[in-house]
């Protein structure tokens, strides 16, 4: 990977360089103040060391201007660091609209990944270089954490909810995926690899691994198998056409946006939020669909709103 004695991981994403610059700035501040304190103490303890028992200290109450100075300077510095770190964080948190979405399910102790084209992989994530990728992630059991140090990205993967992160790889190669949230016995073995490829090589890889159906197709099949259509297609339950990311009125008068989290909840806990004008007749599908199948169903429902095809939140 890198020779010698590296002090930082490879910079392999569009995010990495910006994070490193801020890190260098912080390191410079850290070194400056550590040196300042160290050398000041050293100078004082040498200069004022007790040479005889009779040596008297000069008593000083304090010094208000000094107190103000050494309050104001750190305050000014942390304001700068805060503004810099926060603006960078906000930028790094917002995926570009064009990002390709890949789905991640963590379980003790492996990563299961699913490309929209339907290709599935375990502990390996193949992505094309120079293209934004958004990961939508959930866990089957405990809290995990998806981290790729070379990309400077990390996000907990939490059961019962979807979290996401995004990156755009800037160089081809193989980079570590670590689980960073302690998740039980084999936590340290819950590792994988991101394999960044040239777009053509990626397309080739993708077609080699395709097993017939995309996520949307798999979702449509499930929709059929689970007989969702008997209610959602007949007016007994809210129609799903064009519903994705649209506000929905509930019986209790409030409104929610039909995003991934809402759709997931409605499949697993249908009585949590009832759409206004419909009876609470939907049975729960908890235990009948896996996290992967849920993601396929959601992909299918999204595809029923063509203009929302790519949007996330």
């Amino acid at each position, binding site marked *: 990977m890198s020779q010698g004695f590296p*002090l*930082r*991981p490879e910079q392999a994403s569009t995010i990495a360089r910006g*994070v490193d610059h801020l890190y260098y700035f*912080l390191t410079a*501040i850290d070194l400056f*103040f*550590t040196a300042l*304190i160290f050398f*000041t*103490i050293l100078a*004082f*303890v040498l200069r*004022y*060391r*007790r040479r005889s028992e009779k*040596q*008297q*200290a*000069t*008593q*000083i*109450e*304090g*010094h208000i201007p*000094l*107190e103000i100075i050494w309050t104001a300077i*750190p305050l000014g510095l*942390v304001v700068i*660091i*805060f503004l*810099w*770190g*926060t603006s960078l*964080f*906000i930028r790094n948190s917002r995926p570009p609209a064009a990002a390709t979405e890949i789905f991640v399910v963590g379980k*003790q102790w492996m990563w299961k990944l699913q490309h929209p084209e339907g290709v599935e992989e375990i502990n390996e994530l193949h992505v094309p270089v120079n293209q934004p990728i958004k990961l939508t992630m959930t866990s089957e*059991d*405990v*809290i995990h954490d998806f*981290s790729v*140090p070379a990309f*400077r*990205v*990390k*996000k*907990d993967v*939490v*059961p*019962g*909810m979807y979290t996401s992160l995004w990156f755009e790889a800037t160089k081809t190669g193989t980079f570590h995926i670590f689980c*960073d*949230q*302690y998740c*039980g*016995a084999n*936590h*340290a*073995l819950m590792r994988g690899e991101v394999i960044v490829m040239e777009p053509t090589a990626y397309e080739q890889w993708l077609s080699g691994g395709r097993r017939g159906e995309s996520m949307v197709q798999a979702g449509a099949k499930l929709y059929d198998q689970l007989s969702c259509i008997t209610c959602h297609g007949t007016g007994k339950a809210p129609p799903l056409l064009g519903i994705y990311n649209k506000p929905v009125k509930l019986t209790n008068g409030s409104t929610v946006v039909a995003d991934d989290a809402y759709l997931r909840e409605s499949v697993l806990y249908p009585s949590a939020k009832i759409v206004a004008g419909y009876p609470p007749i939907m049975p729960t599908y*908890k235990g009948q669909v896996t996290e992967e199948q849920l993601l396929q169903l959601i992909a299918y429902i999204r595809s029923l709103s063509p203009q929302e095809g790519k949007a996330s939140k």
Partner: protein
Amino acid sequence: MALAAVDSETRRNYLNADYSIKSWLLTTDHKRIGLLYLASITLFFFVGGSAAVLMRLNLLEPNGALIEPAAYNKLFSMHGIIMVFFFMIPSIPAVLGNFLVPMMIGARDLAFPRLNLLSWYIFMLGGALAMYAVVSGGVDTGWTFYTPLSTTYLNTHVMSAALGVFVAGFSSILTGLNFVVTIHKMRAPGMTWFRMPLFLWAIYATSIIQILGTPVLAVTLTLVALERLFHVGVFDPAVGGDPILFQHLFWFYSHPAVYIMILPSMGVVSELVACFAKKRIFGYSFVAFSSLAIAVISFLVWGHHMFVSGQSIYAGIIFSALSFAVAIPSAIKVFNWTATLYKGSISYHAPMLYALGFIGLFTMGGLTGLFLATLAVDTHVHDTYFVVAHFHYIMVGGAVMGYMGGLHFWWPKIIGRLYPDGWARLAAAIIFFGFNLTFFPQYILGYLGMPRRYAVYPPEFQVLNVMSSAGASILAVGYLIPLVYLIWSMLRGPAAGPNPWGAKGLEWTTPSPPATENFESPPVVTEEAYAYGAQEVSVG
């Protein structure tokens, strides 16, 4: 000197008043209870330390030199639980605080002496439960007990470990309560708030956190227990609960708990710097109020443990800003201690070396905290060795250095005997060097991406891990040396005399060791703390 030696052999004091076991186990003397804590936490320290040594040995090789990952997980869980709840949190408050709070304010004992003894028994019960979890097969939750792992997925001794921490928490609450009441109600005539030694301000601020924060931990652990026993589902997403809620509750206590560990050390350092520079602390009121500011802000920063947990961006921004706020009072303290040295008359006995070590290592720990409060950088280093290095600089480099400094400073008062200063200085130097070699490489490891709590790791991280393990073995030697010479001092050390350091403060006006009733007659305070300019104190 000779006179003092004869005196301490014959004079009645709190140690020779009664030698029976019963007189120790049923004592309500705050000084003896302090020693009971000293013995207990020393034991816990070496148990927790042994776990750390085994961990570092295992990490010598990428695939684990010693044990299976599952066993490694139990080691770091045991290390964390014991060190945090059974060593660090009780360390300075329960040992030095117990001994010193009444002596420093000129009181006969704490406000509630029997409650104080009860606190020790509660602490020991909690400790016994935690040790039961360890010897009966271990627990592998980490000290953080994150759900749903701890509630639904682990079959180890989670209940007894959590119960141990829960029980020990009550000891912490009661000790804090005792100190607050004592400091409010039992100060000697003339001992105004602003004449109090800064150690007491720090202990007071710490006590407030103990009283307000610990009940939240108790509630949280109760919910974990209910969830394990009855599957109530508060934290279980499978039945509509929220695992993130646990993190909010846990860190609402456990972040302030960091200040339970560090504030008392800051108090100790103020005493040591003043004494060995023979100076009043520079900016006394700034140092005093910064302790209170830290205590207050500490309750508002818990969300920085959750920047990558999936909490909203806006929560992250607010917690980031509040976390930076805590840097200011910390910086004020460091600058004031440094300024105190200016034009001092500085000597370098072992306690002063620990105090200077504290200032250096705490500065580094505090400054690296800025990295973690910075959202964009934390996103990369969260849950890596960078965090491990940071909090060890604060808790070991800071809090333990302060504890060791305080122990060496007041040891002659507590025991009435001296220890060999040369050995003590050597140990301080070894600890300082071993500490840096152990934990500095971990900052780099963390930025390179090595996650914490990994029993095995990719081979490119090996060099830094070997450095860290080498440092840990040096650090272990550094901690064993004081154990030897302090025990020697207890048995054979030369008599200390009432005030071997020429220090100011009411505790130094008594013989060493003090009489059971502390002061022959209630003292009257007529001067500020650290009145080193006033008149020369007669030296031992």
